[in-house]
């Protein structure tokens, strides 16, 4: 066990935990965005910043990637943390002003203005989709490209990737994008079209892999469903 101080509280946690995990365990709230329990921590959005250390050597670190250390002093809501956090939200808003997730963060943390030019790029490069694709969906369809201000998320050569199964996982997890599947009759009906099919992903992975709940579009399951192919064979004969 590791002993550390969190917001003046002496706590003990498992070795190997991150500060964020320790904070969650003790019920201390730290806002996150690019963090997801099912994915590896990334530390890109800088929203989960906390202040560690004391005196002139105190610094801000992303709690989702920083491992707990013996005797570490952590403070989750210092002025420095709050100011940095607000600036991060303001920057995110300037990139994706229409995102409900980011708007909620802004209202919760009192960000009332955006002083930067609005770019409407929608993508804030949090990388959730990239990790979703590779870590949960076992696909390698999308990834980061370029660096610095030219950084983007895309498929190889910006054309449809052969690796993509159109599972929709990337859209499902995106905090900003507008492309999420709304179902065939999104406004009026509860979409359950895909659940009426026999998705092949169930056979392959023993798990439903379709995040789009839009079986007709992807079509992998229909195309490869054993019954369907048997049927096809029959009819062709």
């Amino acid at each position, binding site marked *: 066990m590791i002993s550390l101080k969190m917001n003046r509280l002496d706590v003990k946690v498992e070795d190997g935990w991150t500060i964020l995990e320790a904070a969650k365990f003790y019920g201390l709230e730290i806002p996150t965005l690019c963090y997801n329990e099912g994915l590896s921590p*990334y*530390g*890109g*959005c*800088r929203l989960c*910043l906390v202040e560690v250390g004391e005196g002139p050597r105190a*610094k*801000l*670190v*992303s709690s989702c*990637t*920083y*491992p707990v*250390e013996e005797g570490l002093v952590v403070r989750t809501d210092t002025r*420095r943390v709050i*100011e*940095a956090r607000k*600036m*991060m939200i303001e*920057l*995110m808003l*300037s*990139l994706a002003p229409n995102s409900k997730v980011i708007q909620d963060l802004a209202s919760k943390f009192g960000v009332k203005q955006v*002083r*930067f*030019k609005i770019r409407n790029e929608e993508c*804030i*490069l949090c990388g959730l989709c990239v990790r979703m694709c590779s870590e949960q969906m076992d696909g390698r369809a999308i990834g*980061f490209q*370029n*660096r*610095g*201000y*030219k*950084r983007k998320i895309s498929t190889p050569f910006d054309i449809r990737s052969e690796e993509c199964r159109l599972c929709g996982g990337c859209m499902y997890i995106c905090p900003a994008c507008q492309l999420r599947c709304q179902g065939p009759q999104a406004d009026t009906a509860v979409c359950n079209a895909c659940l009426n099919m026999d998705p092949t992903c169930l056979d392959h992975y023993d798990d439903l892999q379709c995040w789009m709940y839009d079986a007709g579009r992807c079509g992998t399951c229909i195309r490869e469903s054993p019954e369907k192919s048997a049927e096809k064979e029959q009819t062709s004969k």
Partner: protein
Amino acid sequence: MKATKKIKTIKDLNQTIQSYIQKRKSEKRPVLTVSAGTCGQARGSLKVIASLKKAISKEKLEDKVKIKVTGCHGFCEAEPNIIIQPQDIFYQKVKPKDTSDIASQTIIKNEIIDRLLFSDPISKKTVLKEDDISFYKKQKRILLGDNALIDPTDINDYLSIGGYSSLTKVLSKMAPEEVIEVMKKSGLRGRGGAGFPTGYKWEFTRKAKDTSKYIICNADEGDPGAYMDRSLLEGNPHRVLEGMIIGAYAVGAEEGYIYVRDEYPLAVKHISLAISQAEKMGLLGKKILGTDFNFRIHISKGAGAFVCGEETALIASVEGRVGEPRQRPPFPAMKGLWKKPTNINNVETLANIPLIVEKGADWFSKIGTKGSKGTKIFSLVGKINNTGLVEVPMGITLKEIIFDIGGGIPGEKEFKAVQTGGPSGGCLPKEKLGLPIDYEGLTEAGSIMGSGGMIVLDENTCMVDVAIYFLNFLRDESCGKCLSCREGTQRMWEIVKDISEGKGKEEDIQLLKELAQTTKDASLCGLGQTAANPVLSTLRYFRDEYMAHVRDKTCPAGVCKELITYLIIPDKCTGCLACIKVCPQEAISGELKKVHVLDQEKCIKCGACFEVCQFDAIKIE
């Protein structure tokens, strides 16, 4: 060069070293040393060498003189230069056509050729010997000095100045822990930028428990305006190798990597050659000099990314991945290359090691200030008379470097600021010229030591433009992972760019400050944490200049294109047509010997006319 024989014991190596030292001492012929580093070659030193060889053979002097091709001597302004021993004559800016005179007059008749001597920019007097040049006088060249003595492509030449004797001392008499103690006692700190004490760094890796460990030489010299590492690798690669081998012995590494920029082809060539020579001689490989110590070095070439100078990004790049920094801890000393304990040192740091081993920790710690020991190489560039690499003891003042060594600002212009520490550093104004240079002093003043770039700026430099320059560099070189760094540098660039174009508002300055502070605070790695320094330091010392752009919409230095106009002064214009010829927009009209007219509508402010006018008839307003 003769084929190198494998040396099997420490004793044999000591004997070989002694025999080469004797050989050097007994050399009675005059030696002509020609500098041929990258800048020397860019200025035609290879042609000079070829024609010098011809001239020597024409005078039938082949057996009577020795020509030695070396790396950079540091005094780039005077490239290509030839030093003639034993008289120690220093000829500068030598052209191929001068070489026949050197052979016929200086070598045969012992006459000095006045036109090739260096003329001091301040006293205007010519100087005969290298040592008498003001540029060298205040320097302490413990690292760079040897560049002029040795042929970097010949391991035996390095032996002849006592090279690799520190290695034999370490292998025969010192335990790894003792080597580390010496480094700790010497007070040597990392020369790559952050200034972490080398001895302690080694100790962390030494103490890490694992079956295999690595040592990496960081030669990814990315700071624009800094090239000391290139010069050391080109001019004295074996010194760096020796330091690295000693380091490997101390931390317990059996494998090492030199991560070098691909933009330095000559450095790559020389260090690769040095490695293969050292392997042939048995200084690298299995059971080095008959001991139980094994060590191999590989070269890993960078592919053009500034952020790879950061330790964890560098490791990712050596592993063949995208150079994105990661969270520390765990530090590379615990989990580095392939998750094994890894020690990373900069080129200049490693070059210091053999000297400290040879001369002792006390000798080293006597040089410098309380917290910063030894010397530091700076690349003194920009608006300065004596451009070049200067090696000075820590604690020397900026003023001494810029005015005594650098010979001041050319063209009787006013000194404005000096930029140190590369993109992570800051600009220091005139008031800070008395600042003694060490790690802490520079940090306190709002800049950093960095890898040692020192760019002198004169009155014609706009500080807002300098800030834009660095932000533009950083927004491109940021890996882009942290929102704070990627968007922070991009947004700061946008704001400052607006200011330079006269579109700035007063509240922008406040926003800029806030954003700069957050970028510093919230980013993961050193790049982001220091990315705001160029903005913060220019805001701190040159706020008035920002305000002139914002309030009065003027650029006092006459640099920011949107805020200036080029004008022809009728009284001075002689009607020579020169500007008309160069104008890419055909914006200037006029006839021979009649005053020319500049059409502001067409002018794109490229500055071509300003550059060609020999009568100062074009002014910037």
